[in-house]
Structure formats: structure tokens, C-alpha cells
């Protein structure tokens, strides 16, 4: 068990996390007793074979899923006992998601997609426009602001998704195979954008199958069969 780098406060504390799925009359244990602590500003890569529980872990970290057992404290707040409303609020304010398949809304422009979290949070239109413009600018997407997703390349789409994940200024970015659908060059662009966020102090957790990408992270967590098999700190 590797502790977070000294001097950093823990942003994530998982203890004894279990997650089981009922498939027919069989029970699949996707996570069995995961303990994990991540510090503020950490950069962790989660690797491991297919079916080892990486996505399940990320979904629990993102409060999209609830563990069957164990506790999860996010920024000092114990989350497993919170109601759905409070968990939605934590997602909105503290967590940014990036998915392998982008999950952009096709009828909305790049700016519209980036604006969505602000709209859901009830931010005033004027402030929304300013923050959207800033988020798009930070990812070099200003010329593409009024393009719809089908008019953008894969790398551009994923950068729009990153802009959307950061526009609410969260402290935690969760990315599940963000480069899985991209060619090398676009993937490299996206990873650099994510590392740029980490450099500004955001905690970054990246699920990847690519050992080269994984190797760039300061912290490398290897999952196997629903448990943490290896946890290396650079």
C-alpha cells in the first residue's frame, strides 16, 4: 500500500470497497475489497486486463455507482450514506468525467455542450458565456465553438469533452480510456491537455490499456480480478 506523497491532503479515501453484480443467477464480484487513497493534485493511471474492474472503480469514484460495502470519502465527505440529490450535487461541483466515446450531445454545438453543466447548475447566461469561452480557449477550440460534434475530428471532440469536464472548475477529473477511440496524434493531444489540467492542480485519474500512456503517470495502479494488484509511485 503506497501512501500519497507527503504534505498533500487526501482527496479520495476508499476503504474495503466491494461491488457485486447479479448476472442471471450468478454473482460477479467486480471489486473485492479495494483500499485506495489519493492526494490532492495526484495523477494516477489505472491499468489492468479487461474485466478487472477499472471502469467499475471509476464509476464509484465518480459517484455514478454505489459500492455494496466499504466507505468512500471525497474531499473529507463520506459519500456512501448521501442521498441521490447530494451525490448529484457533488458530481456537478467537484467531478469532471471524460468518456472513451465522448458523449457529446449531437444537436448542440461545441459551445452548447460545454455550457451544459453550467446550465444544469443554474448559472446566469452572461457568466455562462464567459466561462464557456474561457474553457474553449484553454483547449484551443475557439474557432470550433459553433461547430456541431459531427463537424469535429475525434481529437477535437474529446477536447470539447475536456472543456465540458473542466468548466465547473472541479477538483477531480475521471477519464475512462479517453484515447481509446483516437489515433496516436489526437490521443497525444488529449493526454497533454489532461496533463495540463493536472499541472494546474487538478487530481487526475486515467484508466488506460496503453502501458506507454500509463507510464507517464506519477502513480500507476494495476488492477487484477477486482483488486489492486500493484500500486507504484514514481
Amino acid at each position, binding site marked *: 500500500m503506497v501512501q500519497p506523497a507527503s504534505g498533500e491532503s487526501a482527496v479520495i479515501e476508499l476503504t474495503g470497497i466491494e461491488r457485486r453484480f447479479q448476472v442471471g443467477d450468478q454473482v460477479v464480484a467486480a471489486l473485492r475489497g479495494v483500499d485506495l487513497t489519493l492526494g490532492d493534485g495526484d495523477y494516477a493511471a489505472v491499468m489492468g486486463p479487461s474485466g478487472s474492474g477499472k471502469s467499475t472503480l471509476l464509476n464509484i469514484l465518480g459517484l*455514478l455507482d454505489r459500492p455494496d460495502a466499504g466507505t468512500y470519502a471525497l474531499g473529507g465527505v463520506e459519500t456512501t450514506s448521501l442521498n441521490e*440529490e447530494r451525490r448529484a450535487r457533488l458530481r*456537478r461541483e467537484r467531478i469532471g468525467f471524460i468518456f472513451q466515446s465522448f*458523449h457529446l450531445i449531437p444537436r*448542440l454545438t461545441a459551445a452548447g455542450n460545454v455550457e*451544459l453543466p453550467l446550465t*444544469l447548475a443554474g448559472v446566469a447566461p452572461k457568466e455562462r458565456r464567459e466561462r464557456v469561452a474561457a474553457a474553449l480557449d484553454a483547449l484551443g477550440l475557439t474557432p470550433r465553438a459553433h461547430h456541431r460534434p459531427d463537424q469535429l475530428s475525434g481529437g477535437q471532440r474529446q477536447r470539447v469533452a475536456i472543456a465540458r469536464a473542466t468548466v*465547473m472548475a472541479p477538483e477531480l477529473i475521471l477519464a475512462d480510456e479517453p484515447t481509446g477511440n483516437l489515433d496516436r496524434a489526437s490521443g497525444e493531444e488529449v493526454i497533454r491537455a489532461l496533463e495540463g489540467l493536472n499541472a494546474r492542480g487538478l487530481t487526475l485519474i486515467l484508466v488506460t490499456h496503453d502501458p506507454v500512456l500509463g507510464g507517464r503517470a506519477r502513480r500507476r495502479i494495476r488492477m487484477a480480478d477486482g483488486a489492486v494488484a500493484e500500486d507504484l509511485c514514481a
Partner: protein
Amino acid sequence: MRLRDTLGFAFQALGSHSARTWLTLLAVGLGTAAVVLLSALGEGARAYVEDEFTQLGTHLLIVFPGRNETTGGPPPLLGETARDLTLDDALALTRARGVARLAPLSVGQAKVSAGSREREVNIIGTTADFLGVRHLSMAQGQFLPPGDPTRGHAVVVLGKTLASELFGHHQAVGGWVRIGERRFRVTGILADTGQSLGDTLDDLAIIPVASAQALFNSPGLFRILVEARGRSALPGAEAAIKDLIRARHEGEDDVTVITQDAMLATFDKILKALTLAVAGIGAISLAVAGVLIMNVMLVSVSQRTAEVGLLKALGAAQGQVAALFIAEALLLAGAGTLAGLGLALGAVQGFNGIFTSFQLVIPAWAPIAAVAVSLGSGLVFGLAPALRAARLDPVVALTGR
């Protein structure tokens, strides 16, 4: 989330699956138009009847032979049938309190012929006052002569249609027609009356009441039209008529007196009920359109599962997701209703422009009811799909498992 943003998001979502949206709008629009048009038809009929009654004169009483109300006694046995209402009764009524003038009516059908042309029409036997009591006027010649109503002169007044069918382009006034066994001289032709409560006065012959009684071989009158001295004289006249007839009929209350107002009120009630009934049928079609809204929303939710998952990942609570989909259903219902109201308004104006004798009248409550039913069914039928979306498990929704 702000209401404006909720509506804006819902609007964009609707725009993105336009074929389904348009079809649903069409259904809601037609349902709304049905409610408004059907009630406009009913209200138009009511206004039409009211208008006709007022044309007849507002202080009219009608005396029928026979009792109208059932008193619970045994049915009249043989020989106990109601006494006829006779011409003498009518003449006596002219002296009753509150009565201005009256016209006895004896009605039947007979063949009327002139030369080789023959028609079977309604024959009305009455007196000179009929013209004034019914507010009629002459196109040509004179109406029946005043004078002793018990004398059956051989004169006839023809309705406009009948006159032209019997005489063609020839001069009818002064000519002769044969009714039954008797020859009658044509003294006049009625002016065009149009429809009057459904039965036209254009296709009949009017002869002196005594002549009609002889023709039909019956002393009984069909009814007596009585004009009271004024609206306020109506109740007094009604009582006086009943008293007088009772005295003449050996204490029997064997006539029915109906006032114009009572008849109007009855028609009014019937037509109002009818209007509500047809509007209700329209409302059902509108509710059915609500089922279509539900269908569209269910398809929408299942096609946009990933989007719902994303919204939740971005921090939308269940209530917010539900609100987005309910807003969509309400937008569909609202826009469809607006279009339907426009359609109905246009149709009513078009109809009223073409047909001048019968006008459609949209009652004020109809659009309000249509909007209420439409939004209500949008809400009710939008609720289930919205809740389904709100309860989606975000992980399942995002991975499409």
C-alpha cells in the same frame, strides 16, 4: 436549472427528431381544433335557434289541445280523450285578459292543383291575424281577408315555392287552384321567409280556418298562436287562457299553454347539453393525442438513454431530468394546441364567410378547455416517460448495457 433553460433544452431536443414531433403536433392540433369547432357548431346552433325564436316575437303563447304533464292518474279510457280545441275556444280567447291578438291553426295535407300541375303540400287554415302574429309579409297581393272567421271563404295564399311550381311564370294572384273538391282564388303570395325553425313557409298554402276545417272534416284545431299585450302580460295571459278554457271545457284542464320563453329555455338547455357533449367528444380525441405524446416521449427516452446518463454524470438530479422531459411533453402539447386554435379560428372565419345564414360561434370556454385538456394530458402522459428517464441508472445508461 432556470425555467428558460429547461424549456430551451426541451425545444432543441424536440427539434432534433422532427418527423415524430410534427406528427404529434398534428394530432394535438387536430384534437384541439375538434374541440373548438364542435363546440362552435353547437353554440352556433344555439344562437341560431335563439335568433329564430326572437324573430317569431318574444311575447308569444302557444295553446295545444291535450294535457302535457302526466299527473299519475289512470290513462284515459275510451271516450275520455281530451276535448278538441275549437274555433269557438279561439274566438273566446280573443277577449281574455292580456291577449292582443291570436291566430287559430288547423293543419293538414292536401293536393293542390292548378291546370295540369299538382302538388301535395301542407295546408294551414288560419285567420288574417296570422300574418302579424308570425311577423310575415306579402310578396304580392293580399293575405286572408279579415272578418268572421267562421265563414269559409274560397281564397288561398300561396308560399313562394308553391306559387312558382303551380303557375310557373304566369301571374298567380287572381288565378284559381283546386284544393280537394273546392276551387280557391289566389289572393296573395307570401314573401320569402327562408327557414323558420326548420320548416319552410315557402311550400304551403294558407286558407281561412273554416275552409280548412271543412276540407279536413275536423272541428279540432292544431294549436292557437296567441300574442300577449307585452312581455309582462305573459303570465297573466297564460293564467287567463287556462281559466277560460277550463270554464268552457266543464272544469277540465285539457290544454297545454307554452310561452315563448319556456320553449326557448328548453331549446337552450338541450343545445347547451349537446354542445358540451360534442365538445366532450373532441376532448376525447385530444386525450388520445396525449397517448401519442406518451409514445413520442417513450421513444425519445429510449433513444436518448446515453444522454440521460450524461446529464446525470454532469450533476443533474432526478427531478431535473424529469423536468426536462416533462417540459418536452408540455411543449408538444402547448405548441400543438396553439396550432389547433389557429386552425379552428381560420376554419370558423372561412365558414362564416361562405355561409351567412348559419354562423359558427366559438364559446369563450372552448379554447380554455382545449388548452387545459391538452396541457393536462401532456402532463399526465409525459409523466411516465419522464420518471422512467429520471430513474435510469447512470452507469447502465452511459454504457448502453
